[in-house]
């Protein structure tokens, strides 16, 4: 982010994420920018490719249900205790969207390859899995450093157009504190652009705070920040507020059908005033 750049609104962020963009998203427990997801639905975003780092939950279900998604890449589709995300599962079963099944460490490895600017990352395991049949982009090579046969999978770099997440704090210089949620830093390093919503913007400099500097994504990697208090509702924000299991259970019941989803979203999400 440019030093001294003004904060954005969540509507600004949704406007800057283009139709067709690939978007890296955290799992429900790691900081989801739910207000931007809602704003993407409001602006009728289309053909998005969502990449779960490493799994997808409510964000994907909302975007799939609203018709914004062409492709899901993820190691899992799950809402945790409330069960499976109904619209995403229905769309995958119906073949309405393309599902690129993965496995958690392969998503991390692909992002690490993008972070390092290398075309691929070798990864152990996976051999013998049917993943290799359904992921033709994952290839098997013979380890060039071994004198014996040693097949190993290589995972191509995953360079998302956008990384999008919600965090507790940004500082006045646009640095974002993420605590132990370091997959968010990996996403920001790997993606071309990174947009973040935060609970608050603190008048300090995390990079000069020796306790927090090591858990901070420098503004260098941040394309824009919007303030969104309770921006993780209803999946919650670790360390700040929990998931609202009543709302989630209610959503899962409603979203078993497309009509139920449409009604629930209209009443509970889209009619609220955007920031």
């Amino acid at each position, binding site marked *: 982010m440019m030093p001294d750049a003004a904060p954005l609104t969540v509507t600004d962020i949704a406007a800057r994420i283009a139709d067709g963009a690939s978007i890296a998203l955290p799992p429900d427990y790691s900081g989801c920018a739910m207000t931007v997801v809602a704003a993407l639905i409001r602006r009728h975003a289309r053909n998005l490719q969502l990449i779960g780092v490493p799994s997808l939950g409510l964000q994907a279900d909302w975007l799939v249900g609203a018709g914004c998604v062409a492709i899901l890449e993820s190691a899992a589709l799950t809402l945790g205790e409330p069960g499976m995300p109904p619209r995403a599962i229905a769309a995958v079963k119906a073949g309405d969207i393309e599902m690129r099944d993965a496995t958690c460490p392969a998503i991390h490895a692909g992002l690490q390859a993008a972070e390092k600017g290398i075309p691929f990352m070798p990864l152990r395991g996976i051999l013998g899995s049917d993943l290799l049949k359904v992921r033709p982009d994952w290839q098997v090579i013979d380890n060039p450093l071994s004198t014996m046969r040693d097949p190993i999978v290589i995972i191509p770099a995953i360079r998302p157009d956008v990384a999008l997440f919600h965090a507790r704090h940004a500082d006045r210089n646009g640095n974002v504190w993420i605590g132990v949620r*370091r997959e968010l830093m990996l996403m920001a390093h790997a993606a071309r652009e990174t947009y973040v919503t935060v609970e608050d913007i603190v008048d300090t400099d995390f990079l000069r705070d020796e306790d927090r500097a090591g858990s901070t994504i420098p503004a260098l990697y941040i394309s824009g920040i919007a303030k969104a208090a309770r921006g993780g509702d209803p999946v919650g924000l670790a360390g700040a507020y929990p998931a609202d299991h009543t709302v989630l259970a209610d959503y899962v019941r409603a979203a078993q059908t497309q009509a139920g989803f449409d009604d629930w979203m209209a009443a509970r999400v889209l009619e609220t005033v955007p920031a």
Partner: protein
Amino acid sequence: MRPAAALSTPEIMIGTIAPMLAGLRHVAVGASSPIPGSAALLARALSGGRLRVSLLGSEQHNPFTDGGRELFDCAAQGRVDAFFLSGGQIDGAGNINLVSLGDYKSPKVRFPGNFGSSYLYHLIPRVILFREEHSPRTLVSKVDFVSAAGSSPEGEFRPGGPHALVTGLCAFAYDRRRGAFQLASVHPGVSPADVRAATGFDYSTPTDVPVTAALPADELALLRTRVAAEIAETYPAFAKAQWGV
């Protein structure tokens, strides 16, 4: 608390799994794993703190500080001794399916997905499979989709793999050389014939099949008090249903 005599099936499974973790240094527990999580915490309590337990989703039992990749890197470094996997289907070769039933492109049933199984099954020395529902629907002759393969061709890099399969009826041991299961014990009140009838895959049965050893009374008490309280942090619904905490 129910009387010590009346063990629930999850308690029997916990009591089957916990001894498999004795003497280990570090056991990790993944998502949706309250039974293995309880077994790991019980083994930890019995180890006098020597066993380290990493429980995904727990704040109290999470030693990781390098993001989502760390569990996987840690396993590849050889620092995770045991892990637990389940499956929508598990077959007699130890293959597990966490993806879908029927044709992959137009599935009859869709499961959440592979998570880390395709990788961790190869890297962690002692992977214990668990599935409470023991039926021809879950234990099949051949999975519809191989999320993670039970065994690997000779010479492939494979430090990890299945160690046992614990169900609501019995425990199987996994023979890596043959790539197949052998019945190891039947839970109280279950006969080897019951197991055979409920199992969709072939496996070997020794002449004498022991009954799964019951948890000693003091360990059961530990499970129902300290371990119940510990697992409740991560699996409150499970802890409440099992032990009313």
